[in-house]
């Protein structure tokens, strides 16, 4: 369990993290979401023990992380955002060094390093200098480093940044697999990633928590609008736009697509949580319009995110 209470951290005049409180349960994968500069990295750095907060508490596994920095670091694995590692070192030597610093017995080190190399798919890179690795492999070295001591808690700052789509899926699967047994906190500004991997999402904006819940909940919370997209073919001079506007509960209609003179796409907005489709269908039937397409638009996490993080 990780609990963060009233955490604040300023750099000069900038409040990077402003009174953040949240809790991560054991075995949960938590995603910190927010635009660049929202305070995600600072939050993770505070939990990992790299930075000290100005005020607030951090509790990791019932231990006060600020008073027991070293014992808490022992049970945390951390992957930092740019994943900077010693470019001169060979992958194997680097992981060996980490194994030593992580108190793995000398006799077991090589064995453990081998295991991690296999898990992270680094077999071909193990005898290379870290500086010569591709971005994806470097990221894997970072992950191997974070998991080497089999920590209870994994803190991953943008674990998939800079990877290609295949690698992203691999890393996501790896994180999901790990998340079954471990507590994972990861940050991202990619929404689909958080939706795909996390049990819970916290949206951070300007150093504050602006939303907290599982992705589904968050989507529901923000449904104060329904949208229906339809594509209609109607004869010339038929006033589709105007007619749609006269429907009950419709606030706004816009043309979003101009396929041809007859076929056009419309977006119908309503402020009520009402399904407009039956009304639209019967209207179209009455007027003799040909309905090419009609679907209700789901409010994505993306729009939740946008709404919450573009305010002020």
């Amino acid at each position: 369990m990780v609990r963060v209470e009233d955490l604040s951290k300023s750099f000069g005049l900038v409040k990077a993290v402003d009174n953040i409180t949240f809790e991560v349960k054991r075995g949960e994968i938590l995603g910190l979401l927010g635009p660049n500069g929202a305070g995600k990295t600072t939050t993770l750095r505070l939990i990992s023990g790299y930075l000290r907060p100005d005020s607030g508490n951090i509790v990791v596994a019932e231990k006060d992380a600020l008073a027991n920095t070293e014992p808490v670091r022992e049970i945390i694995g951390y992957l930092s955002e740019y994943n900077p590692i010693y470019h001169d070192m060979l992958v194997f030597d680097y992981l060996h060094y980490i194994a030593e610093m992580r108190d793995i017995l000398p006799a077991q080190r090589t064995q453990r390093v081998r295991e991690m190399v296999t898990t992270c798919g680094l077999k071909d890179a193990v005898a290379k200098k870290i500086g010569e690795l591709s971005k994806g492999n470097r990221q894997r070295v970072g992950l191997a480093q974070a998991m080497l001591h089999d920590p209870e808690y994994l803190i991953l700052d943008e674990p998939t940044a800079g990877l290609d789509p295949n690698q992203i899926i691999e890393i996501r699967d790896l994180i999901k697999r790990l998340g079954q047994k471990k507590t994972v906190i990861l940050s991202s500004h990619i929404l689909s990633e958080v939706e795909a991997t996390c049990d819970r999402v916290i949206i951070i904006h300007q150093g504050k928590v602006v939303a907290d819940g599982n992705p589904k909940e968050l989507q529901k919370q923000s449904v104060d609008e329904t949208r229906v997209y339809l594509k209609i073919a109607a004869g010339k001079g038929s006033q589709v736009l105007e007619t749609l506007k006269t429907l009950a509960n419709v606030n706004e209609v816009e043309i979003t697509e101009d396929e041809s003179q007859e076929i056009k796409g419309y977006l119908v907005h309503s402020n009520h949580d009402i399904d407009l489709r039956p009304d639209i269908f019967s209207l179209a039937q009455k007027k003799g319009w040909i309905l090419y397409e009609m679907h209700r638009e789901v409010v994505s996490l993306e729009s939740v995110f946008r709404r919450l993080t573009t305010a002020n």
Partner: protein
Amino acid sequence: MPQTVEQAKQAEPTGLLATAALAWRRIAGQAKKELYSYFYSPIAYVVMVIYLAFAGWFFFSRFFLFGQIDMRMYFGTAPLLLMFLAPAITMRLLSEEVNTGSYEMLMTLPLTTTQMLLGKFLAAFVFLAITIGVTLSYPLTIATLGPLDWGPVIGGYVGLLILGAAYLSIGLFTSAITQNQIVAFILGFAICFLLFLVDKILMLVPGFLVGIFQYLGVEYHTMNFSRGVIDSKDLVYFASILIITFMGTRLVLERRK
């Protein structure tokens, strides 16, 4: 898998001795990695070779001129060379970590700032000792030419190591206050040079300060070493430099958190 890793880890320390052993393992682990980095990067070899070339030249060019079986010449010039060597050894130790950001990873490993600094210092000291150790070939060579008084030689070498440790600690400090290796080197050299100069300007100093300035000067203390004398007064001086700069380094890093 978790069970095997749990077993693979060293037991949690109980008692003072075990805690000290754990601390030492971490310091030694860090030092090992730094030494590895030294010998994996060309800078270390360049620095070492330059030191040895200059030390050898300064020593042997005059050795044959005077024709004396004596190491005093070496112990006279080595402190000057150390002013360059020590900051060159330490310049990248912290500045580079902070500059590339690897410092972040380092400080999420379970070791305290003090342990980390001690590890780095230890590695720098071992590297320095190896470099200076190579010059042991001088006394060994000239001892074959005639009788050599080993007392001052041993005293001289111990003195060089003590002086080198103080300079390294200064270099580590300047490496902490900047992210640029070159700046760290120049600042480190400047501070060492200042300590060298301070008792050379005694005639410009008001009378009541002369004693203090003289005591602050580094040569005032190394003079005894090259005579083979290790005085507690000198040890206190170098220990003060070590402790003050080490605490300063620690403070700089802790403040940055």
